[in-house]
């Protein structure tokens, strides 16, 4: 939902990383980010903002790759773990023993790498 702000932050971070190359006319062709399941990143929406915000910048046309860190629900009683899809409602009860689940997830979001052309 806040993809516009995230898209701008990604562009700023990528351009700053590219700037470390010290060369002129560096073009950013690929941006790889890692996002926790609860970072609130919806890729199609993020791509739309990136396309718009990168026009006329060295990152215009760059491909975005989002690696999502998986989240899981772990039972506090029996330890049974199951994957949690961030688009779903949290199941509070373990489907194996009926115990209380705990959500293990994070909301971090960082730039992993960029690919540049010069």
């Amino acid at each position, binding site marked *: 939902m806040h993809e516009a702000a995230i898209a701008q932050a990604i562009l700023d*971070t990528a351009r700053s990383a590219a700037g470390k190359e010290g060369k002129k006319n560096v073009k950013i062709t690929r941006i790889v980010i890692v996002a926790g399941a609860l970072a609130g990143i919806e890729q199609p929406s993020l791509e739309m903002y990136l396309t718009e915000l990168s026009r006329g910048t060295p990152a215009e046309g760059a491909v975005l790759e989002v690696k999502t860190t998986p989240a899981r629900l772990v039972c506090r009683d029996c330890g049974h773990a199951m994957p949690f899809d961030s688009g779903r409602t949290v199941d509070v009860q373990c489907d194996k023993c009926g115990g209380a689940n705990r959500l293990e997830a994070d909301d*971090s979001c*960082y730039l992993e790498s960029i690919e540049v052309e010069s």
Partner: protein
Amino acid sequence: MTKKKTITARRSILSANDRQAAANTRLFKKLGLTTINVMASPGAGKTSLLVRLLQALSPHGSVGVIEGDVASSIDTEFIAGLGYPVTQINTDGGCHLNAVDISAALGELKISGPGFLFIENIGNLICPAAFDLGEQARLVIASVPEGDDKPRKYPGIFMKADVVVVNKIDTLAAFDFDRAAFTAGVRAVNPAAPILEVSCRTGLGIDALADWLLALQKAR
């Protein structure tokens, strides 16, 4: 010839916000302000709770409010009318406050501690959770009419809460709000945050919340 190269750079996307948030934290500390980021959906009672807390806490020191709204200054005018220092941030459509907004607003507010600064975030259970403002604690309000499933549907914000407040508890009889289910939902994502029930209309539970805040202030 075109040369391709991959640059590995592990950097937080929100590092600019996080740096400003850290600067805000230092400034709050210097000013003696215990700062609380208040987050909830629209209509949960953020402003009503703030008014109750301003009344309860003002005898203990200074109090002030930074009001975040997409548009309008209705809440700011209301709080100013009661005689409390308040300043407005309008995000013009933006779904959350960020640390830079807070830094600018703090300059306008001109309050110093010891006391409390409350930041009323934009009414939304998703985006405000992602942006650190430099606050000392995050207070998340849920209200009875919203239903008991909110922590299970919006785990991110409840996971980050330091205290969870259930408002409009006086309306329990009129809604299908299962307190045990609500608590189970909070505990599935947040093992430690106290869950405090209040009614901003009747004043029930406000003293307990004020005590929790005063203990937090003491602990800093």
